[in-house]
């Protein structure tokens, strides 16, 4: 099938196209040089913005922890539902939508690629089964490896190459995409009810520090030539004063970057940019972090923006979630996974009038605005931790309009207002910069070569928004911005018109991308390995891997490793 998008204002930052009026041609799911003008289906995009489909580097949408969150909160979704139509499946929404609804809602906003950032390897099948039921988007998922006993043991022995071979095995075995590290060392400690306090604290029983884990896996990542960097949720997340831990974490791999390429991604950075010694004296550490990031090239970040609403927090960071339970007294789920990781869930309401929450809200935006290079910081809410992803248009408006920020600042806790840096920041992002922070930059950081741009040969994922950049000033018309980005005029997935003005036209299935990491000397399955397996886990070696038939549409990406 051929499709021709005509006359739109095109924003394609990877190709340095900044609002030029041009046509985009698509054939068989890919961008092409041109199509038959007469027979191709045409979309008149004049007066509209054309961007690559949105990419989300970090959103919890599938797997054990997400699903337990769904189960936990009938009261969260019973009033927000979607009826079945002739084209679509029914479902429920709010903070943790059911799988089909998740896909539809992303597609309505013009998103076409999303990354599920936390998967316990032992439960990887679950994640993939849910991803199969998440339509409209291509997706991938990151296995949690920072507290895996194998990693701890090999790194402790300094056996980096051996560790790398096991990580390669794990990546392929779980059909994963990147190395996810959450509170390194802290999750193993949480298995016995403890935590680590800084990146040089020892992990009980294992005699290794978070620093060693971070550096070790960063080296492994490089040895394996993985497309993304290590994806890190820092130690001490959600604790006052933790911006120092975040800085330590970035610094500790400073020397491991080569050719100025990123070596680490600090995720939902807002949650680890707290200054102050307790909740009362909490202030923003965004300035310090921005300063560091502006002067270094080895780091990328995502915001983890907070939205003032009721949501459900869920991370693999068991001890952090427990603290959150103690703070709120809300219902609390904990789920530790043998030999690998933990996780926790607590419903949470971010309140404008809460000092802490208002500061958090401010921090996220400060980070995005103070970090000069939009290729280094991406827009996320750490869905659903900072708020459900459906609020992205709100964030876009805040980033593009000083007025929009002011309007909210007026309504937040007074003490927080006086401490917020936002009133002193004039920067207003352009559509071009938004395109970087919501798709191009994310795709680049992820090393997704066929996503986030409109070059010939790339995947034909497009979002068209009905707003004229020549006649609309986002700075004053921030409400229009919000409205526009809520429902794309067209969302095109694999060259098919998937959604139009908020209506799902086709239930498109997306592929699951995973890394087929090829090492020269792969792990051999010896009887010894099987025995070790039996000692570490309660399942047999044979039943552990996610075989390819688990993936409804499998999209392996071959990676040649240096080991």
């Amino acid at each position, binding site marked *: 099938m051929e499709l021709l998008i005509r006359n739109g204002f095109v924003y394609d930052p990877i190709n340095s196209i900044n609002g030029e009026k041009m046509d985009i041609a698509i054939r068989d799911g890919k961008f092409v040089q041109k199509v038959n003008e007469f027979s191709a289906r045409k979309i008149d995009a004049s007066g509209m913005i054309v961007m690559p489909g949105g990419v989300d580097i970090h959103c919890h949408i599938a797997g054990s922890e997400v699903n337990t969150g769904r189960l*936990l*909160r*009938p*009261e*969260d979704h*019973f009033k927000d539902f979607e009826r079945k139509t002739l084209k679509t499946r029914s479902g429920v929404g709010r903070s943790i939508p059911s799988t089909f609804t998740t896909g539809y809602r992303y597609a309505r906003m013009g998103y076409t690629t999303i990354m599920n950032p936390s998967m316990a390897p032992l439960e990887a099948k679950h994640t993939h089964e849910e991803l199969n039921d998440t339509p409209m988007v291509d997706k991938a998922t990151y296995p949690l490896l920072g507290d895996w006993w194998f990693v701890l043991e090999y790194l402790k022995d300094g056996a980096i190459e051996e560790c790398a071979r096991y990580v390669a095995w794990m990546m392929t075995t779980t059909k994963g995409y990147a190395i996810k590290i959450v509170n390194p060392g802290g999750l193993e400690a949480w298995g016995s009810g403890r935590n680590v306090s800084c990146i040089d604290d020892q992990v009980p029983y294992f005699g290794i520090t978070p620093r060693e884990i971070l550096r070790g896996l960063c080296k492994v990542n490089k040895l394996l030539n993985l497309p993304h960097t290590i994806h890190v949720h820092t130690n001490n997340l959600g604790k006052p004063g933790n911006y120092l831990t975040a800085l330590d974490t970035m610094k500790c791999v400073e020397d491991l970057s080569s050719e100025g390429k990123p070596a680490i991604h600090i995720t939902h950075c807002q949650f680890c940019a707290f200054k102050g010694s307790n909740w009362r004296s909490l202030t923003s550490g965004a300035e310090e972090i921005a300063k560091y990031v502006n002067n270094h090239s080895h780091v990328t970040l995502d915001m983890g923006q907070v939205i003032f609403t009721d949501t459900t927090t869920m991370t693999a960071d068991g001890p952090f979630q427990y603290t959150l339970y103690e703070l709120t007294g809300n219902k609390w789920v904990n789920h530790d996974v043998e030999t690998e990781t933990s996780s926790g869930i607590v419903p949470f309401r971010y309140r404008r009038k809460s000092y802490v929450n208002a500061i958090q809200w401010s921090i996220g935006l400060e980070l995005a605005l103070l970090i000069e290079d939009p290729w280094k910081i991406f827009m996320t809410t750490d869905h659903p931790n900072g708020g459900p992803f459906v609020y992205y248009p709100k964030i876009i408006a805040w980033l593009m309009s000083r007025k929009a920020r002011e309007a909210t600042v007026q309504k937040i806790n007074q003490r927080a207002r006086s401490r917020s840096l936002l009133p002193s920041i004039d920067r207003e992002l352009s559509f071009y910069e938004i395109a970087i922070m919501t798709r191009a930059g994310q795709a680049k950081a992820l090393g997704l070569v066929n996503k986030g741009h409109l070059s010939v040969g790339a995947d034909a994922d497009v979002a068209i928004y009905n707003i004229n950049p020549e006649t609309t000033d986002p700075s004053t018309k921030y409400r229009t911005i919000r409205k526009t980005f809520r429902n794309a005029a067209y969302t095109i997935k694999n060259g098919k018109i998937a959604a139009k003005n908020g209506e799902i036209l086709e239930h498109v299935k997306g592929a699951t991308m995973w890394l087929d990491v090829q090492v020269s000397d792969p792990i051999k399955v010896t009887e010894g390995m099987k025995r070790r397996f039996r000692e570490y886990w309660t399942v047999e070696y044979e039943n552990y891997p996610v075989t390819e038939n688990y993936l409804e549409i499998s999209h392996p990406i071959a990676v040649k490793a240096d080991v």
Partner: protein
Amino acid sequence: MISLHPQKEFVFPIIAEGINPDVFQDKNRGEIEELEIWEGNKQKKLGELFKVKETGTEPQQEDIAIVIYGDLSRVRRIGAWMKGGEITINGNVGMHLGEEMEGGKITVHGSVGGWAGSMMKGGIIEIHGNASHYLGAAYRGSSQGMNGGRIIVHGNVGYEAGAYMRKGLMKIYGSVGQFAGFRMHNGTIYIQKDCEGRVGACMKNGKIVVAGFLESVLPTFTIESIRKKVKIGEDDVAEGPFYRFLGDLTENGNGKLYVLKEENPHLSTYERLL
């Protein structure tokens, strides 16, 4: 005044959120008959299931009154979210009556199904028959129970009456099942007859008065004093003497549980602790 009469005996659940004075407001008979209603999995028009009559000639006054006759025990969600007006039901009625209502009055001359007045915020529900389980309770997963208004039941009530209650008054002239006032935060529950037990479990605050027989008080309540009488709502007083217990200890609670001494001689062992 509008009156409704079922056209037939219902077999499948009927979801009738449309039967609500706010919805009927400014609508003539024809428009009311067109309202959406669900019978099992089929969408119907209200007029297909109910005969709609207008009585009284006066132009619609401010507060609309709806009167329903017949067996409505399968009809659910009548008066849900209503803000004003009046509904009178002559017969039994199904679940979720007046769920989340904010104002107005519902009177039932018959018995009601579960979750009546669940999560209500204001208004009055008066039931002359019995009420089933979860009277004024919260939806699954929620800890926001009844948050205002009044529920009066002249018959008996099932279990978990007033679970997660936060505000308001519940007066029950019959007896109640287990777990009345479960995890209540505040508000008042008065039970004139017997109470099956585990009353006030995990309550944090609020007041429960049992004027009938209560087999045992949970071990996580402690006796505090004996009171001559106790205030019920704004204008009512129940004559004692009552044992006054505090709890629930498990929740660091400060809830007050009053149990009528006269009806409960077996609780006199507690007196030695006073």
